């Protein structure tokens, strides 16, 4: 996994709550058996006016100029700013892959859905939960000035904006450690392979119907 330490960027203001993973990447693109190439279909139903299919040349499609992702002033944003319960719905990890593949590295929202959050951590996308009032403030700033910049510092667990306001955020120690170092969780788990085998041996005695 790619490590994450800090980033300074403008923000994409996606002023919606309950942005579900069907909206982040619609079903037809889940037919892919790869992990890459989903960026061009991020927010597909909002971003294009015509329907799309996997594998077509999406540059030929009719884009929706009103959708915030298509506005030139937000083209360089690497942080998505959204409302509560971001990433709800389907467990599709394609949602995280498409956000990363497009070039975003952080999502800021008041809250995130549980499965989306675990998917973020496995791929090096940082979900940052801030208070409602802080998210309101950031929307106000970005709406007034699309080039408004923030620095997201994982080590310090803080966001500092260009006016020097700073907001702290919480993250599990373990998740932070994995993100900062880009660790692969499977490797970490396999360090406990003996414990897993011991557990299975016990299980064979206590609950033989579960394991042969």
């Amino acid at each position, binding site marked *: 996994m790619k490590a994450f330490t800090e980033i300074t960027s403008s923000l994409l203001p996606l002023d*919606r*709550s*309950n942005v*579900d993973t*069907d*909206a982040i990447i*619609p*079903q*037809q693109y*889940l*037919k*892919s*058996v*790869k*992990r890459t190439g989903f960026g061009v279909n991020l927010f597909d*139903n909002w971003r294009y006016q015509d*329907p799309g299919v*996997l*594998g077509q040349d999406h540059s030929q499609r009719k884009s929706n100029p009103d959708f915030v992702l298509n506005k030139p002033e937000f083209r360089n944003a690497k942080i998505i700013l959204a409302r*509560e*319960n971001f990433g*709800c*719905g*389907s*467990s*599709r*990890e394609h949602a*995280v892959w498409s956000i990363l593949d497009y070039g975003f590295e952080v999502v800021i929202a008041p*809250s*995130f*859905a*549980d*499965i989306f959050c*675990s*998917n973020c951590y*496995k*791929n090096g996308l940082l979900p940052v939960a801030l208070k409602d009032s802080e998210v309101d403030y950031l929307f106000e700033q970005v709406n007034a000035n699309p080039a408004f910049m923030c620095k997201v510092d994982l080590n310090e667990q803080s966001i500092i904006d260009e006016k020097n306001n700073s907001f702290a955020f919480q993250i*599990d*120690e*373990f998740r932070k450690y994995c993100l900062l170092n880009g660790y692969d*969780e*499977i490797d*970490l*788990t*396999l360090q*406990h*392979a003996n*414990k*897993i085998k011991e*557990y*299975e041996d016990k*299980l064979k005695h206590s*609950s*033989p*119907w*579960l*394991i*042969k």
Partner: protein
Amino acid sequence: MTNKTLYDKVWQSHVVHERDDGMTLLYIDRHLVHEVTSPQAFEGLRLAKRNLWRKDSILATADHNVPTTDRSMGIEDVISKTQVDTLDQNCKDFSLTQFPMLDVRQGIVHVIGPEQGASLPGMTIVCGDSHTSTHGALGALAFGIGTSEVEHVLATQCLLMKKSKNMLVNVNGVCPVGVTAKDIVLAIIGKLGTAGATGHTMEFAGSAIQALSIEGRMTICNMAIEAGGRAGMIAVDDTTIDYVANRPFSPTGIEWDQAVAYWKTLHSDEGAKFDTTIELNANDLKPQVTWGTSPEMVADVNAKVPSDVNDDQQRALEYMGLKPGVAIEEIKLDKVFIGSCTNSRIEDLRAAASVIQDKKLAENIKLAMVVPGSGLVKQQAEQEGLDEVFKAAGFEWREPGCSMCLGMNDDQLKPGERCASTSNRNFEGRQGKGGRTHLVSPAMAAAAAVHGHFVDVSRM
């Protein structure tokens, strides 16, 4: 801690290792695999040259992407075919138990797991699919995972996670005639909101829940995720044990007796502590219909779409092509879909069939389809003659799969089309770009099909 919740009990019996900060290595008993969220996980395993930890924990089937029309010629869509073939190949390469497309046991993972006895009480069950919460109806701890976690389970038989909070949803009373498990769970989501149970494992309890069959309990747990709860659980009772008995993967002989003795302990102890408790009275419930683009946007069938709306609700009404304040019963439909892991079991098909017996689809209904949850459900329904009832009314009778629940195959809504659906998500574009979904129970969907608009099935 002496008084434990059901969740405490199942969680604690699966802890392999716990770090000081609470991050836990949790053992996984059953891993259900389907074609959409697994190819990248198998590929990851190969690239890292890792072994698969325990292949007998896995049961695989293709469900999301399979055609529901005649299958004898295979899958026409090349891209869908590649995905299904990839699953077949992975199952072959790793010698996994799989029900291929033409096997009568094939179906939606969340229907076949319990049907086969592959999902059992007290198990930890995962699948790369958010509706894995369904299996909690058997007193299991079951939840959806992403593809990286699928790979993690393939490689280690464990997941790294922290214990969540625990919410008790108590539903007491007796459901009025025409009110089903689907209506109970939609009402719960309406009350809690789609993020109301985020960070929680939900336990559903109370007399109205205990009165439900396992099928009904699965409908409830299936939609825990639509309230934000990653897992939903229901205590084991005689109904559970009767359901599990004599299924192909269920234990037999002395192991059955051992298992039953253990399963009987799978309920929350008196006085066990929950982080949150909510109460609902089943006596007051009406059949439910969603009117918006989130399952929390739901109303009683005899009520109206709200007239005082916020920005999100306004946007939802525009997408749905509805005016604020319109009566739910005035909403006219184009299509009807009976199926999905929420409502495609035999009991659901019986309920729908009983409403349409000797009736015909309304003229404005362009398409009505029934997609059984598995080949075995389909077989059972045909033995009972339900397929004839549906066909006589004008419904299409299809092969099992996810179908129009998410429109990955050809079963989709066109822009602007309005559908009464027994599935679980009414998100924008869920059933096809621009499609408009109203979530209802099977009986309500069937009633809407013959009237062409929503009607209160409890008054029919």
